[in-house]
């Protein structure tokens, strides 16, 4: 589900749900929440990398699991996912996302919740929520703060995937490396951060937190409400039925 290993002072969390395209199910989010709390307390860890087993970083919400819920349960699940991802921004230690293959929907949100993002030029970045019928229920503040609200709105509307190279041009991703090097470069970056004076790294993250994550919670709450409203729309209901939801 979520594997943890350690390399020097770097903790590496690897999403290992390739059978569900590394989607963000309840169990995985629980594991993430626990891991973030442990890592932030662990003096042996100075930085964290979030990576995934192939085929890709993360496909977003686990639609198969969502199909077993009603709309209210689904909104509660998305709110909890949002909370766990926001926690990354409030850890003392920097988090690096190693994004290869694809980052879809909530997968984009998970990456954007990290402090630094490494990807490769052919990586597929896509927000498929609006074509499904709804506003993405979280992560829009972290997306906006990275690329500005005008470009964030465009990505949410665009209905088209962008490449890792385009994500890098937009400053959605911070580093562009060859596919084979994504995880290694993310770890190397985390090691460089881990080698710096810890107090100064933590102060830096804390200083920027109000600017970067200041209104993330309010933004997520509002998006979740709008998401709930959109899910009552005919287009959304048709999508949810297609996924197997009984509504």
């Amino acid at each position, binding site marked *: 589900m979520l594997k943890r290993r350690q390399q020097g002072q770097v903790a590496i969390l690897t999403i290992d749900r390739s059978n569900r395209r590394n989607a963000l199910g309840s169990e995985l989010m629980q594991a993430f929440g626990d891991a973030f709390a442990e890592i932030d307390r662990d003096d042996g860890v100075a930085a964290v990398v979030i990576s995934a087993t192939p085929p890709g970083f993360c496909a977003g919400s686990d639609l198969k699991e969502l199909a077993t819920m009603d709309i209210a349960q689904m909104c509660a699940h998305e709110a909890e996912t949002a909370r766990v991802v926001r926690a990354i921004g409030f850890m003392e230690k920097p988090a690096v996302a190693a994004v290869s293959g694809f980052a879809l929907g909530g997968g984009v949100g998970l990456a954007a919740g990290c402090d630094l993002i490494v990807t490769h030029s052919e990586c597929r970045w896509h927000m498929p929520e609006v074509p499904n019928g709804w*506003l993405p229920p979280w992560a829009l503040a972290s997306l906006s703060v990275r690329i500005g609200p005008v470009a964030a709105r465009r990505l949410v509307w665009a209905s088209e995937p962008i490449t890792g190279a385009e994500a890098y041009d937009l400053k959605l991703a911070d580093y562009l490396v060859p596919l084979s090097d994504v995880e290694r470069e993310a770890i190397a970056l985390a090691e460089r951060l881990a080698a710096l004076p810890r107090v100064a790294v933590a102060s830096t993250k804390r200083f920027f937190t109000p600017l970067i994550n200041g209104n993330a919670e309010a933004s997520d709450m509002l998006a979740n409400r709008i998401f709930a409203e959109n899910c009552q729309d005919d*287009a959304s209901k048709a999508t949810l039925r297609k996924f197997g939801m009984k509504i």
Partner: protein
Amino acid sequence: MLDVSSRGRIGVVSLNRPERRNAMDRELVTALVGAVRRLDRDPLIAAIVLRGEPPGFCAGSDLKFIGRLSLEDISRFEAETGDMARLLGCLRKPVIASVEGFALGGGFILAASCDLVVSAGTARWHLPEVPIGWLTPWGLGALISRVGAVSARKLCFASEEFDGYEAKRLGVVDHLAEPGHADEVAMALADRLAVLPAAAVVATKRFFMPDILGDAEALDIQANEAFADNCRHPVARATLERFGNR
């Protein structure tokens, strides 16, 4: 003056004052407000494309028109134009600018006030207000949302004009088109938005509106006051007299 048509579910609004390089006077601004409000209410329309008939998108405020007004009336006209530009961001439906030829002064800001901006790579982009004597009087909130405050200030200082490629790099423009093909790209973009679930498209625009336009009105009021003050200075007066007497 202003042509309004529709193609499928796309409303197309064309500035058509070629003899004034599609510059805006009061009649054009009033017509534009009426047109976009009607299209926004029309249930058959899903998105709006704003474009200019050749030779270009829009040359900004019509200096010949404002040159004949009193300073108070100029300020009032510019405030109304700013209200119109903010309205584009407050409509429920997405508005896409299609820029060929040039987007100058208020025309630059008008395009940047749209939700999505398509430009020919060769189109000329320039804010010439400071060189002719005044701060750009409206729409700077929308520009700041696109490029950040530091770049927006640089653009207002206006030491140089640039092309669509540079505008794309800065974030003023979202999509580039081959010269002569901006309309095609804009219409394709509009068509793509039109087939998406309407509720989600509207929700997306509404969700981002506070971030994009939150303090735009206050900024417009502030810029308008600076503009009115600047217009009393000799360089601006000379500009206005030169154009007003043409």
